[in-house]
């Protein structure tokens, strides 16, 4: 087949891009070469629309060992140990085949982590579905949850936290973001940069089939009505093989046979081989007849672009082939020497004795296009003025119950009960709390992690929304007593070629960067997923933030269930009663406009750090950050978890009961302390200029707000826990 512009465009390349390829090569590429270009130059691999904006994110810090650019980020946790983590999207495949799409998403991110030499110790996920009324939603939820569980449970890595949202903007484009954390010795981290010439290039894992050819291009294409035709690009996950691959790789990594290693993710053999060579400033030569294939008559184009799962590419030290082969034989995995590193700085590929690719590496990597796309700024919306009358017919109890059973607030136990969250025996905080926590095996340390997103805030005002998600993640860390270390982000957006969507991306990213900088909470890895739209309708901007924190002594960890009768609950942070964009405004008042709550980074940092101090000194018995749904929802969750009630004091500077209790002002926490410590705790808070007030006193079983509310927690548990299982079983 002779390549021409039309074929290039069918490969997702723009006219100008095709022209540039021909100019670089000084000839027309053959079809395999075109395949390589289209894979490497597409959005998913090249970050061509996002690169210039991602540059502004803070990526370094005292604890950062490896920032973005490798398979995953790495942070120092002391004692010669490090944590490796990353989040990644698998949105489009999960919409088409929810079980396999989600499963392979989990498999892919785990490979990113163990490629670096780390044993995965925890999985997390952030999933966004369409409206609960939409006819596809239920099956998508069922399939995605089964897929995430099916893969993670089988490998034996606990899923310790996550996040689930429903919003009609995801009706035609769900989001499935999977995150993995791994643990590694600092001196045993493996990188993808190849070094040395004439080193054997090894292929291990599963055989190559025609799976997902052009998956990376699909991830960068808008869904259209012909979606069904794109179906064969979905892969089937094989967690059993991945488990073997994990063990085999870690076994081989125990000495120094490996020079560099890279999993075959998006764009398979193409991107893995090119990245290894590119980072090492080397060339690479491959003989595709050596690649283990599952199907007959696969051609070079198919072999290079296949996205078959559970495969790895390794550059070995000379002479280590025999030893490596023995390990992979033991684990019953394919092993083949398929090429070598060269000094040519080119990728040269042979098949049936012919040279089928001959392209300088830099053309495919560094020379990939970069765009500074047009984008539109979002103005801060004007605050809504609420007439007191709108509250007149509302009853606090009814509103509370309605919010507690809202799909976005209700308990997600139906989901996380299907995930093995205790395997590996180190989970000390399971899903359902502020953050999941796992012990660092055999030590006193523990790692906290959570995933957050706030698409409504980001949609209303991307800059504030971006900041808010980072702050919420930071608060989740604080609330369990962890020092926030770093984040990973999965930036899910619409079509970057549209100014509005690009603007959302630019400003959310700015907001994330600003907050991260201020909080000293750097970004060490991440993933951009554009083109999340169907038939021109884009999703709300949805950056997901995966936060990671360190607890020095796990015995000091704090959880959110109320602990003891007569203890005092303090509300930290100021309550102004901001209800625009709150769940109360949306669900009860039916108001969709207005700005999200303001972010004050000084308060965020100061409140958080002071609470951490109180935790480390042992004063805090339980803690929870106040987020979606506001104060009352937050305290009710603490009550439900602890199976206790509370007597809530009448707020001093009351604006209005509804605004006060359902407003979503930021930088707030509820903490439980003992009476005897009150004076001491107050003085510490005052000394640090932290705003607080005495919120209430823990009592048995009843939640009471004088003259306004008196309800047993059992009644609220019912509202909170039943919604999801009921929805799923009907």
């Amino acid at each position, binding site marked *: 087949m002779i390549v021409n512009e039309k074929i290039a465009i069918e490969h997702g390349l723009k006219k100008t891009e095709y022209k540039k390829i021909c100019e670089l090569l000084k000839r027309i590429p053959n079809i395999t070469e075109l395949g390589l270009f289209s894979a490497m130059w597409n959005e998913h691999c090249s970050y061509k629309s996002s690169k210039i904006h991602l540059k502004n994110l803070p990526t370094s810090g005292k604890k950062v060992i490896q920032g973005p650019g490798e398979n995953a980020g790495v942070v120092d946790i002391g004692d010669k140990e490090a944590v490796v983590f990353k989040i990644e999207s698998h949105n489009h495949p999960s919409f088409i085949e929810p079980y396999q799409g989600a499963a392979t998403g989990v498999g892919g991110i785990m490979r990113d982590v163990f490629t670096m030499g780390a044993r995965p110790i925890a999985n997390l996920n952030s999933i966004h579905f369409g409206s609960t009324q939409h006819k596809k939603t239920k099956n998508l939820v069922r399939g995605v949850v089964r897929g995430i*569980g099916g893969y993670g449970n*089988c*490998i*034996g890595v606990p899923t310790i936290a996550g996040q689930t949202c429903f919003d009609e903007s995801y009706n035609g484009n769900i989001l499935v973001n999977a995150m993995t954390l791994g643990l590694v010795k600092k001196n045993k981290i493996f990188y993808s940069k190849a070094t040395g010439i004439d080193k054997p290039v090894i292929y291990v894992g599963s055989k190559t089939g025609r799976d997902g050819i052009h998956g990376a291009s699909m991830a960068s294409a808008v869904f259209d009505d012909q979606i069904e035709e794109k179906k064969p690009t979905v892969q089937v996950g094989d*967690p059993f093989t991945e488990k073997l691959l994990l063990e085999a790789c870690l076994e081989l990594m125990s000495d120094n046979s490996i020079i560099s290693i890279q999993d075959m993710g998006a764009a398979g053999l193409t991107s893995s081989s090119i990245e290894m060579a590119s980072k090492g400033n080397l060339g690479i030569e491959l003989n595709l007849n050596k690649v283990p294939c599952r199907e007959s008559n696969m051609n070079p184009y198919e072999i290079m672009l296949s996205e078959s799962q559970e495969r790895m590419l390794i550059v070995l030290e000379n002479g280590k082939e025999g030893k490596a082969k023995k390990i992979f034989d033991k684990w019953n995995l394919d092993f083949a020497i398929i090429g070598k590193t060269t000094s040519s700085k080119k990728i040269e590929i042979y098949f049936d004795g012919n040279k089928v690719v001959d392209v300088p590496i830099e053309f495919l990597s560094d020379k990939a296009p970069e765009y500074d796309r047009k984008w539109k700024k979002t103005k801060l919306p004007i605050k809504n003025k609420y007439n007191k009358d709108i509250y007149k017919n509302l009853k606090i109890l009814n509103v509370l119950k309605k919010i507690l059973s809202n799909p976005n607030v209700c308990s997600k136990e139906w989901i996380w*009960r299907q995930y093995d969250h205790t*395997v*590996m*025996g180190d989970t000390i905080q399971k899903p359902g709390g502020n953050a999941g926590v796992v012990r660092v095996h055999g030590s006193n340390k523990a790692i906290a992690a959570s995933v957050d997103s706030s698409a409504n805030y980001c949609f209303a005002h991307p800059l504030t929304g971006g900041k808010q998600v980072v702050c919420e993640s930071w608060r989740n860390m604080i609330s369990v007593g962890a020092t926030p270390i770093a984040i990973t982000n999965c930036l899910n957006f619409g079509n970057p070629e549209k100014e509005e969507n690009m603007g959302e991306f630019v400003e959310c990213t700015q907001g994330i960067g600003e907050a991260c900088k201020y909080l000293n909470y750097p970004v060490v890895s991440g993933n951009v997923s554009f083109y999340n739209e169907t038939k021109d309708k884009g999703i709300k901007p949805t950056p997901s933030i995966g936060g990671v924190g360190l607890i020095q002594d796990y015995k000091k960890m704090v959880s959110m269930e109320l602990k003891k009768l007569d203890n005092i609950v303090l509300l930290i942070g100021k309550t102004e009663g901001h209800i625009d964009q709150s769940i109360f405004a949306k669900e009860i008042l039916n108001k969709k406009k207005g700005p999200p709550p303001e972010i004050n980074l000084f308060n965020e940092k100061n409140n958080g750090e002071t609470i951490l101090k109180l935790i480390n000194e042992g004063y805090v018995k339980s803690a929870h950050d106040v987020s979606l749904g506001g104060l009352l929802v937050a305290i009710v969750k603490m009550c439900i978890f602890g199976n206790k009630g509370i007597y809530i004091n009448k707020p001093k500077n009351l604006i209005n009961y509804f605004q006060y209790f359902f407003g979503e002002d930021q930088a707030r926490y509820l903490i439980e302390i003992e009476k005897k410590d009150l004076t001491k705790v107050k003085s510490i808070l005052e000394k640090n200029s932290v705003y607080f007030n005495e919120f209430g006193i823990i009592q048995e079983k009843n939640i009471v707000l004088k003259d306004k509310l008196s309800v047993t927690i059992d009644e609220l548990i019912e509202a909170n826990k039943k919604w999801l299982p009921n929805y799923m079983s009907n």
Partner: protein
Amino acid sequence: MNSSVIIFPGSNCDRDIDVALKKFGFKNKMIWHDNVELPKSDLVVLPGGFSYGDYLRCGSMASKSKIINDIIKFANSGGLLLGICNGFQILTETELLPGVLLRNKLSEFICKNVFVKINNVENNYFKNIKKQILELHIAHNEGNFFCSNDQMKKIEDNNQIALLYCDKNGEINEKFNPNGSSKNIAGIFNQKKNILGMMPHPERMIDKCLSSDEGSIFFETLLNNFK
């Protein structure tokens, strides 16, 4: 006391049980399924996980491993053989234990704490155990114990039921049955009571900071019974 944990491809609770056995004083060895011979052991454990991915049926392919013959010999000579979760499934597939473990009633994976009542203490696993009701943890897709009526009669006549799902006071009721298991069975013995298969994972509950530490009672009792 010497114990051996068998690792099958896809086992994933092997480290957890290793940690637990060592914590309570066993000298433990990890044995790859490909071996033909078991080392000298007082206790052999088939761990939890997804041997062979749980493809086909849970435990079916592991039950054809090379090491199984020697395990059968070991059990027939009276050695203590414990299967936890996937290990239990392997034991039923080898027919060392009666019945099978079907898909959970709701056909969903289930991960949560449960209470189990120890139904028979006249054996080397539970003799002298200090509590009859333990809070343990389950995490499985296929824990729904099933057997024919004839088999069930034999199991009951021989007092082979080891553990029953119950509530914290020991009440046994369908309400507390997490997976549809016949008669709330969470674990069973062979006739001689030297083979025990159980769905709950005591090895995940051996520390106060985990959601229960009553797995410790299980291991302490087991070790003491060897002394």
